[in-house]
């Protein structure tokens, strides 16, 4: 029981990560694959942020009378990663739109079929 209380953050991360992983490998639709990758990415964000949590710590903004702060480093890494993540997701979606224009489909199996026949 104590293990559940002290490690539940990792299990939330693993669950989310596996949901994302499952979508990426099981779905043939490219948009769905990108959604899966996004969920996967979010789980990594949570992993980082939760590792920076300090029990009893405050948000990392210096103030008189507060001695314990959460670790600011993961926050920095993740807030930039979120913005970079949306930019790269947009790039992926743009690729999907171009694939749709070139192949007329965004199903992985149909794209591979057309590649082999050509």
């Amino acid at each position, binding site marked *: 029981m104590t293990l559940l209380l002290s490690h539940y953050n990792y299990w939330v991360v693993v669950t989310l990560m596996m949901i994302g992983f499952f979508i990426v490998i099981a779905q043939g639709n490219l948009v769905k694959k990108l*959604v899966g990758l996004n969920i996967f990415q979010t789980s990594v964000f949570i992993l980082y942020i939760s*590792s920076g949590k300090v029990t009893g710590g405050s948000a990392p903004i*210096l103030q008189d009378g507060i001695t*314990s702060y959460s*670790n600011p*480093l993961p926050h920095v890494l993740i807030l930039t990663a979120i*913005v970079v993540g*949306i930019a790269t997701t947009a790039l992926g979606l*743009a690729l999907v739109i171009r694939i749709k224009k070139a192949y007329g489909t965004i199903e992985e199996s149909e794209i591979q079929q057309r590649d082999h026949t050509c």
Partner: protein
Amino acid sequence: MDAVDVAFTEAAVGSGISPLLMLLTVALVGRKEKHNPGRSIPALILVTITGALLVIGTLSMPEFGFADAPANTHVSPRYIEQSADEIGIPNIVTSVLASYRGFDTFGEVAVVFTAGIGVLTLLTLKPSGSQSPVISGAHQHKILRIVSKILIPPILLFALYVQFHGEYGPGGGFQAGVIFAAGIILYTIFFGVDLARQVVSSALLKILAAFGVLLYGSVGLVSMLHGGDFLDYSVLAENPVTGQHIGIIIIELGVGITVAAVMTMIFYCFASQVNNSAETKE
């Protein structure tokens, strides 16, 4: 988890930008998908095994909120204890982002800029002027249009507040850029991409996106010319702490400009694609 800056960014990105991009893509590529059976079960087995292994791996991880965990004992105590004297601003996240790890952030801004160029290359932005229809049916919804008209100015104002208050409270260039872009995107949804491009032209956005990165990089060069290292702001003024202040304000401005311009540009690209495909169907 006390991550106020991250919460800010995620709220703005998650509500303002990413779902819209997803929806626009789905509108472009069609919402029907082919069912492919036979892949779920092997995938499920693989995922279960991987998940189980990862859970076993987490058992030896430090507990949640443990103050002496390796992640919290390496460089962070220095940031927390020294940043008040070295950088002199209350928000530690901003001082780490802009000063201690300024080089890292420069890389991130360059990645955002590159992704913007990539989208622009893949989805060409036609010169505006063709009177194409509004991208959605939102044109007819009077209530939504009026409410959005009321909301857009406070959103833009709030973005500027977040930008310039980032040293004292949660905020900074990344958050402000995303919030500002969300405001312009809201305008684009309701009044169409052509009207939005008359307000904020795409040529201006291209210049601004490059200008932000340049501003960031040139701060680094100026500090080199003053005899310091690349992005070492302490040499920018007589007093090192004042120098840090100047450096952080300028590079946060560069980050904010680039992020806002790239996000808006990406949205324009997607929205004008939807317009084009609507025209070809007619």
